[in-house]
Structure formats: C-alpha cells, structure tokens
C-alpha cells in the first residue's frame, strides 16, 4: 500500500544527453544520485490541509521578492522635506513630511510598478500571517504537535511571534498617520510597564517619542534582522518536517510506524511548484485590483492626529480590541508612580496569556496525558474533545477581541450603539469561551457516539422492511473496512489514577501535591469520554444483526484489523 514503488517506474525513461551529462557530472562530485534517490523515496501524505503551511511559505517568498523591490526606492529617514509641487498626488503637493513618507508616495505614484509592488507586499503580509494562523489551527486541532513534533511547534510559534513583529515594523515604515498611531500605541504600551517603562520607551525611540531614530531602526529590523531569523527558523522548520516525516490522517493501513503518500519527487514537487504559482498569482491579482494601505489618504504623521477608523492590520487587531475593551478607570498613582493597569492588562497581560497558552500547549497536554509514545497518525478533532473545545474557546476569545477592535465599524455598519456593543463584548469575553467550550465538547462527544453507532449498526439506508410476523425495521448498511478503520482506530485516554497524596498512615508523600493537580487536570480532560467500539462489541452487534439482509463485512479480517489498530501507548 505504501507507494514507494511508483517512483521506480519513472527512472527507466530516456533522458536527453545534456541533462544526463549534467546529472552525471553532479553525481560524481556531490553524490546527487544519492540525494535524488533519497528524495524520490521520500513520501509525502496528501491532504489539502497539509498545503496550508505551503501557502505561508509561498507568501513569505512573495514578501521577500516584492520587499527587495521596495528597498530600492524607500528612504528610511525622518528628515523633513516638502513634497514637490508638481508631483502626484495633488493632495500632497508642497506638504511638509518625512523623507520616508515622501519616498513612499513617490514609490506609489512615480516609480513604474511601484504601487503594484507595495500592494502585493502588503497583501502578501496579511496572507502570510493569515495562512500561518490557519496552518497552526490545523496542527493544533489534529494534534500534529504531539511527540516528536513539540519542538517544531515551538519553532513555528516563534515564527508566528516574529512575523507579528515583522508586520508591526513594516507597517510603521511609511510614516503616515495610521502607522504613527500604531507607534504611538506601542510607545504607550511600553511605558505602561512599571518602573522600567519610560526608560524602555526612550531606548526604543532613541529619545522622546517619536524622535528621529525610530524609522531607520525599524527599517533595519524589518528588512534584515526579522526576515533573517524567520528564514533560519523556516529552514529548521522544514528540515524537521522532512526529518521527522509528515503526519498522516487516520486511514486504512496508516499507522504510527509508516507513511502512506506520494513520493516527494516528482509528484509532490510538481504539485507544490504549481501551487507556488497559484499563490503568487492570487497575490498579484489582489495587488493589482484591490487597494491596500493607501497612505496618501492618511497623510504624513503628526503626533496630534487620529482619524476615525484608525486600526492596525488584522493580526494586531486583537491588541487594539483588548485595549478598547478595558475600562479606562484602572489607572492608579502610587507614591508618585503611575500604574496604568488600563494599558498594562490589555496590552501586556492579555496577549501574554494568549501566547503562553499557544506556546506551551503541547507540553501542558503531554504533562497531563503522560503519554510517551510517538504519534504520526493525526487525531480527528472530535476524538480529542477537550483539546478541540479548548481550541475553539481560545478562538472565541480571539474573535471577541477582533470584533472589539473593529467596534466602531460594527456600530456604523449594523446601526448599533458603540457603547452598547462594547458593554456586550465586555461580558462576552468572559462568557463566550465557557459556552463555546461546553458546546464544542458536547458536539465532539455526540459525534463520537454517532461513530460508535455507525460502526455497530451500519449506515441508515432509509429502507424500511416489514417481517413476516409484522415487525418493522430499517435496513442498515454495514461499514466497509476503510470507513471502520477511521472510526475505531483512535486511542482513548482515561483520567490518571495516581496514588493519593497521603499514604495509609496519613503521611504526605513527596510530589503528592503536583500529582494532585495533575490528577485533577487529567480528570478535566478525560472524564467525559466515549469508548470506541471493541472487536468483541462489534462481533456481538453483528451476530444479532442478522435481520439486516445486506451482506456484513468480511468477518475475520475486520476483527483482526480492529485489534491491530487499537491504541497502543502505555
């Protein structure tokens, strides 16, 4: 079933002489043949959700290509200039502005293809973070982060944080009102950190905000340091995917010990290469037809200004939302020091909690399951009900923050009162995750029950039969092995049964406290569960199901299959 053999067929074909000569040359010097044979043997499971990471990868390549173009024309300087009287756009003629802003205008209106490149770059940035987040959700909900891939999760998480920084620094470069507002907020957030805040702000801005240093500094970070780090981590990330092999969805013949898929060369490479052009094409189309960050609308930065609808790019919107959500009365003055909880909590504590949850989740889950086995077959989200519910609860918090960040637009577009929306969202941020958690968990468990049901009794066919003695029954069509494999193969964790904190004589044992917490968490995770069908149950169900006239699945093989795929760890 593993398709390693498909690649063998392709090696026999006749190759043009120059190609053969080149390959031979390289083979003799760098052992290319070995590498290609290795790659051709490498299998990659195929599923659309495994392409999400690739969207991020290709957006990143587009970012780098368009970014190189932009650096040729952008001037990272805060020196004041007057925009030429004869240059476009009309609304900026003769206006005093920084060189950074002037060069951005020039890039947009006078450099051929400049505006296209700017817009592609910005769309690609939004797409990069967007696809990364969706990719991460895929990894999260399928449990792809479990051993041995926790490290790669951390690498990915670090890239996520770095790409938010890349976005923030890039967004600030044009020095328009909106980007200046963003920097102003950054300044406020840094200052809200107790004691060291003001010093740190001076350090970041090289003096009082906004100063004249910040744009050149951001520029260096944005074009050199951050992309460099992302690139290095990306290489590590992909190497780890390659080295540890890709995970696969549960399916016939797929176990934690094999990989079922297509060879990397040529099938997968061809698909991936084609997909690059699709991503590039979509981004180019968006850049060509949809305007983004039209800085000339906002005008050059002036610290005194804010306009309605001032928001950051979507990936920073949760921070904006968090700030908007926080009641403003929580600022205290203690012994002459101002403690701005109204900024500190929403802009430092809240994102701190969210990101800690993300970064630490694989390790937390592992501490709870105490699972030491390797996992290469993905979970179906419903089979990890608590994890899935935690994930959706997390998303609901994120979503509430996004909506709060856009509360003014929600107000105007749905004809609602801004104050009422904010009040409702303040309640929702606490209530919604709990509700979402409970609902998701219930849904997952019922889906599992449904799976049990289907495995035991087969699919409903809608055909109702009447027996000779007048009873009615519905004909059920039994599952074939393929369908059954997916539904019974998973492992079910049970709450840990750790020894009690105190022994029989009431003496506390070392580590008892930690175990107590662990037991409680483990109960939280695994108390409610639905056991998958065991072979015995299946046999029992099939033996009394003889009134189903459709033929049952071949007996012996399915039972063996079932036994073979039941969870194996501890």
């Amino acid at each position, binding site marked *: 079933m593993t398709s390693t053999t498909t690649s063998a067929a392709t090696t026999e074909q006749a190759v043009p002489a120059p190609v053969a000569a080149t390959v031979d040359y390289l083979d003799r010097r760098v052992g290319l043949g070995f590498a290609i044979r290795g790659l051709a043997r490498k299998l990659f499971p*195929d*599923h*659309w*959700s*495994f392409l*999400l990471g690739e*969207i991020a990868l290709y957006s990143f390549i587009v970012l780098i290509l368009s970014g190189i173009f932009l650096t040729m024309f952008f001037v990272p300087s805060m020196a004041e200039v007057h925009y030429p009287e004869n240059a476009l756009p*009309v*609304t*900026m*003629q*003769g*206006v005093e502005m920084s060189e950074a802003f002037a060069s951005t205008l020039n890039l*947009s*209106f006078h450099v051929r293809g400049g505006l296209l490149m700017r*817009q592609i770059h910005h*769309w690609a940035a*939004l*797409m990069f973070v*967007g*696809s990364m987040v*969706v990719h991460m959700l895929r990894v999260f909900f399928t449990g792809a982060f479990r051993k041995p891939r926790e490290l790669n999760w951390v690498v990915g998480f670090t890239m996520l944080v770095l790409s938010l920084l890349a976005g923030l620094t890039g967004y600030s470069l044009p020095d328009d009102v*909106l980007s200046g507002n963003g920097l102003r907020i950054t300044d406020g957030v840094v200052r809200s950190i107790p004691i060291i805040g003001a010093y740190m702000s001076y350090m970041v801005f090289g003096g009082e905000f906004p100063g004249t240093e910040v744009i050149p500094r951001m520029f260096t970070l944005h074009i050199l340091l951050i992309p460099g780090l992302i690139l290095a981590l990306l290489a590590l990330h992909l190497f780890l995917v390659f080295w540890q092999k890709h995970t696969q969805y549960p399916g016939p013949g797929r176990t934690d010990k094999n990989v079922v898929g*297509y060879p990397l060369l040529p099938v997968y490479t061809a*698909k991936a290469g*084609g*997909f690059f052009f*699709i*991503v590039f094409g*979509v*981004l180019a189309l*968006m850049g*060509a*037809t*949809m*305007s*983004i*960050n*039209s800085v000339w*609308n906002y*005008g050059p930065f*002036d610290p*005194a*200004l804010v*306009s*309605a*609808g001032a*928001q950051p*790019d*979507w990936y920073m*919107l949760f921070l904006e939302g968090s700030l908007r959500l926080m009641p403003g009365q929580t600022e205290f003055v203690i012994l002459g020091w101002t403690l701005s909880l109204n900024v500190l909590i929403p802009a430092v504590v809240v994102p701190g909690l969210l990101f800690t949850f993300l970064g630490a989740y694989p390790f937390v889950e592992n501490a709870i399951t105490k699972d030491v086995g390797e996992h290469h077959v993905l979970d179906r989200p419903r089979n990890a009900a608590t994890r899935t519910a935690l994930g959706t609860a997390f998303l609901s918090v994120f979503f509430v923050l996004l909506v709060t*960040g*856009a509360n003014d*637009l929600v*107000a*105007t577009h749905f*004809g609602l*009162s*801004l*104050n009422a929306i904010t009040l409702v969202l303040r309640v929702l941020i606490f209530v919604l995750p709990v509700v979402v958690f409970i609902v998701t968990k219930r849904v997952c468990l019922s889906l599992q029950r449904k799976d049990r049901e289907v495995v035991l009794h087969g699919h409903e066919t809608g055909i109702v039969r009447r027996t000779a003695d007048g009873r009615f029954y519905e004909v059920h069509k039994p599952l074939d092995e393929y369908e059954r494999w997916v539904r019974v193969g998973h492992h079910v964790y049970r709450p840990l049964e750790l020894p009690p904190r105190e022994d029989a004589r009431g003496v506390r044992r070392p580590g008892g406290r930690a175990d107590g917490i662990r037991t409680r968490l483990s109960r939280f995770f695994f108390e409610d569960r639905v056991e998958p069908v065991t072979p015995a149950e299946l046999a029992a169900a099939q033996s009394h199901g003889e009134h189903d006239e459709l033929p049952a699945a071949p007996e012996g093989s399915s039972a063996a299959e079932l036994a073979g795929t039941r969870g194996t760890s501890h």
Partner: protein
Amino acid sequence: MSALARSRRHRFAPMLLLAFALLVVGGAYTALAPSSAQADALDNADAGKGEALFIANCATCHGPGAVGTDLAPSLVGVGPAAVHFQVTTGRMPMQASGPQAEAKPPQFSEDEALDMAAYIATLGPGPSIPTEEQVDPALGSAPNGMLLFRVNCAMCHNAVGAGGALTEGKYAPSLMNSSPTIIYEAMLTGPQSMPGFNDATLTPDEKRDIIAFLMEQRGTNPGGLSLGSLGPVSEGVWVFVVGLGALIGCAVWIGSRSS
C-alpha cells in the same frame, strides 16, 4: 467703397453683431452672477410661500413663528444656511426619533427649501447660503484642505470622509456624496453632534480648501478597488474572504486529485 464699409453692409453683419452682443451680455452675466448668487438665491425666493410651507410642515415641532417647542429648538437666528442644509439633505422635516435626524431623500424642491430659508431669514440674521464661488473646488487648494481636514474633521469622518461611529448610536456620515454647498453649510452651521466652524475658526478660503480636498477624493482610486476606504479592518476581511478563500479552494482541489 472701402473694404470696411463694404463688410459692414454684408448680409451676415447684423447676425454677427447680435452674436457678439449676446456673448458680451452672457459673459458679463456669468462673470457677475456668481458673486450675486447669494442675493439671487434668496431674492427669487418667496418668504411668504416659505412661511406657508413652514406652518404646514414644520410648525408642529418648531412652533408657530419658529420660536421652538419642547420637541424642537427655536430657529430664530439659525440662518438660511441651516434651513437649506437640513431641508435639502432630507434631515428636516424630521420623522422617526432616533439617536440623530437621518439624511433621507429630500421632501421639498430646491425652490421650496429656499422659500423656507428666506422665511427663517426674516426672523433674525444668521449664516447665509454660500455663493457658487465660495464653494468652487477649482479655486481651493487640496493639499491645504488635506491638512485642515485631518485636524478638524478626520477624527469623526475618517481620513477621506468615509464616515465613522460616535457614541450612543450617533455617527458621522460619509461625505462621499455631499455637494460642495452642503459641505460648506455643514461646517458653517454644525448640525447636531457636529461642531460648527464659524469664519473665525475656518476662514471661507479654508472651507473651500477642504471642499477641494474632499472633491479630490472622488476621482478614480490609484490602487484599484477602494474597498470602502475603511482601512485595515476591511483589508483583513478581504484577505480572508477573497485571498485565503481562493487559495484554500485551490488547495482542496490539488489535494482531491490524489488518493
């Protein structure tokens, strides 16, 4: 007979002369008309008809003689500009009570609005309807307007006048379809939650600059579709709906051609 004398008798001469005379009169009229448009606007208006319209349509709220009631403020001294603004944008006569009087399709013609404006003008002096020249965007400076707009208006109306939310369900409307006269009158009279900008805060020239800036926003957008000029939030929605949507669609397609 000299050539000149001969041409004077040419049979087209009278017609040429007539055309010339018309040109002079027309030219003189257009040259003079704008500066007297204000006077004209209300000169042709009939305060008497205006009063009748007012009593029929407005007095229930604003009271007889426009002195105000519990329902609506006095209009004595608000000036013709306020009436013209409120009536031609359809805000008055007010209908549903809500957080703010909404603009709707106007109920009265321009002439009727001017009649009522003339009537209110007889009650007491107030800001008058601007002349054509005062609101001509071609005479204003868009860059200066941009600077003024950012300082005075953008916090409510958004950077390019796309509109924005205020507290308690009130909002600053989009300015994308407001006529130059309406923009001028809005600044002059400060309707509802909007502050008024009298000629000391924004000189007539500066008001015209703002109009020039706003008119400049209506040309084609250099970057393509403007997506409502709402800024990063709408961009974020688009990248997910259009961009990522399309790409995930492609991914599903690529993924489906396999196992």
